[in-house]
């Protein structure tokens, strides 16, 4: 126990002597949260819409009004007949162009189908899909009111016989930040925890002080624990700051029990620190450790964790790979506690997986360390 304390103390002193690294470890995650939190916003509102109404009838004006009166679309241009509509998209003046051909009102009155065209910039497919959804909804609403009017003329009941009653749980306003912020926390913690431990061990190797640690009367586990405990503390402080920033800036409140959140974060950090140690047993230089840590922790935590891209729709072999990414489990827990107000008990498979991951990485790392000592 005394020896463990000595290692911890030594590590803390070393961190303190390098205030730049300390600030990086604590402030950088919060800074990145702010940056990404504002940049990553998938809410689609105020789409720039151009409208070319070649019909100029009551029906066409009504359709245009239903678009421009919704908060989804902002009218930015009204090109005349014969204008180049593609150019509006190419020059990014508009995101979408609604074109109503001549005879629209006449066709509707005659009971024929009346096509209207929507030109759409599809490069960002997610946004395009949402915009298309809005447009379809507006057009079908317009159609429903046409049917209603016709039925009313026949003296019949007009309402549609079937209604959908949606009830949206957990995020009723459907704000994308509520979903993305927990994901960001998972990725930032992974990044800082892996890099800080990996670099701290490799730094000893580079400076030749690893030899001194090896000849010191220390058991492997004491060395490992002593090396990780300070960074666990720093990462916890960073977590706290991130959560505070998430609440203050994005209104992301923790609805579930805070103690369960702490346990989940500790479990996750345990695995991340273990992984950092594992990297440090392989890499000899800080440059390599940094590079390997970055590639092996950051990209999977962003791309294979369900942070933005759902694991469910990935190819099967990639889903298998994603089982090795601890962020995958952590995000389910984190979103459950933060957004759904649940406790850890609902997520025992994920908790189990995190424990397994932590034990596996630390065991592997200590096995590699011990072999070198022998």
């Amino acid at each position, binding site marked *: 126990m005394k020896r463990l304390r000595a290692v911890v103390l030594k590590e803390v002193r070393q961190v303190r002597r390098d205030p730049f690294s300390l600030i990086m470890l604590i402030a950088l995650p919060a800074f990145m949260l702010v940056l990404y939190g504002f940049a990553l916003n998938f809410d689609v509102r105020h789409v720039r819409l151009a409208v070319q109404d070649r019909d100029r009838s009551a029906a066409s004006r009504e359709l245009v009004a239903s678009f421009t009166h919704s908060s989804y679309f902002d009218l930015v241009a009204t090109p005349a007949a014969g204008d180049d509509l593609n150019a509006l998209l190419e020059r990014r003046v508009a995101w979408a162009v609604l074109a109503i051909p001549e005879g629209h009102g006449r066709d509707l009155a005659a009971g024929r189908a009346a096509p209207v065209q929507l030109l759409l910039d*599809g490069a960002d497919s997610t946004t395009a*899909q949402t915009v298309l959804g809005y447009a379809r909804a507006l057009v079908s609403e317009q159609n429903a009111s046409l049917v209603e009017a016709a039925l009313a003329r026949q003296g019949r009941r007009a309402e549609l016989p079937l*209604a959908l009653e949606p009830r949206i749980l957990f995020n009723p306003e459907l704000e994308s930040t509520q979903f993305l912020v927990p994901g960001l926390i998972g990725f930032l913690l992974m990044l800082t925890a892996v890099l800080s431990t990996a670099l701290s061990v490799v730094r000893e190797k580079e400076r030749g002080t690893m030899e001194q640690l090896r000849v010191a009367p220390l058991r492997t586990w004491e060395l490992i624990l002593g090396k990780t405990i300070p960074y666990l503390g720093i990462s916890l402080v960073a977590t706290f700051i991130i959560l505070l920033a998430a609440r203050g800036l994005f209104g992301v409140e923790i609805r579930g029990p805070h103690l369960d959140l702490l346990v989940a974060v500790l479990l996750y950090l345990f695995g991340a620190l273990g992984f950092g140690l594992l990297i440090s047993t392989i890499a000899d230089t800080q440059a390599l450790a940094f590079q390997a840590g970055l590639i092996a922790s950051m990209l999977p935590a962003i791309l294979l964790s369900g942070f933005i891209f759902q694991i469910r729709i990935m190819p099967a072999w990639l889903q298998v790979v994603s089982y090795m990414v601890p962020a995958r489990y952590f995000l389910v827990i984190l979103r459950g506690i933060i957004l759904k107000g649940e406790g850890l008990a609902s997520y025992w498979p994920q908790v189990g997986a995190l424990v397994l991951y932590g034990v596996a990485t630390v065991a592997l790392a200590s096995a590699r360390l011990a072999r070198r000592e022998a």
Partner: protein
Amino acid sequence: MRVLWRVIVKEFLQIRRDRKMIPVIFVAPIVQITVFGFAVNTDVTNVPTVLVDQDRSASSRELVYRFVESGYFEIVGGGERAAEVDRWLVTSRAQLGLVIGQGFAAALASSRPAAVQLIVDGSDASSANVALGYASSVTREFGALVQERRLRAAGAPPLAVGQAVLVPRVFYNPDLKSRWFYVPAVLAMILSCARRRSAPWSSSS
């Protein structure tokens, strides 16, 4: 010019000497773009849905069939009561709950309006939004079909109402595949990782 050449040669020698770094620089990006290229996909299809069909009638089954047939929804489980849906959503095993209450078919057969409930896990806002849009268009179409059948059964003259038809034309990415949008971004991310060779907070690099 010769000095520049020397520096370039020196830098290459240095890279070559760092044997462990070579795979990190060259192999890793190739592996990454293959792996992550398959990961980046935000298309909303096969949304995992829990079904609570308390009506168990031909009409309710027809509605469910229309949901499944659309390709956007996949029934992953069933329950007896609406309250059971919550457990599925909380544990993220499903994103939607489709609840068809008792008396659905009876309401459709009479002239009373029928309702189906859709319980949505809104935490993933963008996919929830898209799924909600699909669900409402499926129900609306089904509603229109029922209405048409009713009118025909009542012997009413066919309704002469024109309907506006939206013809979308999508530029640059006509199939709206999200992969086309994200793969360039992933490429940029990987390249920026590969370029940063030394740690910003390492004192000896």
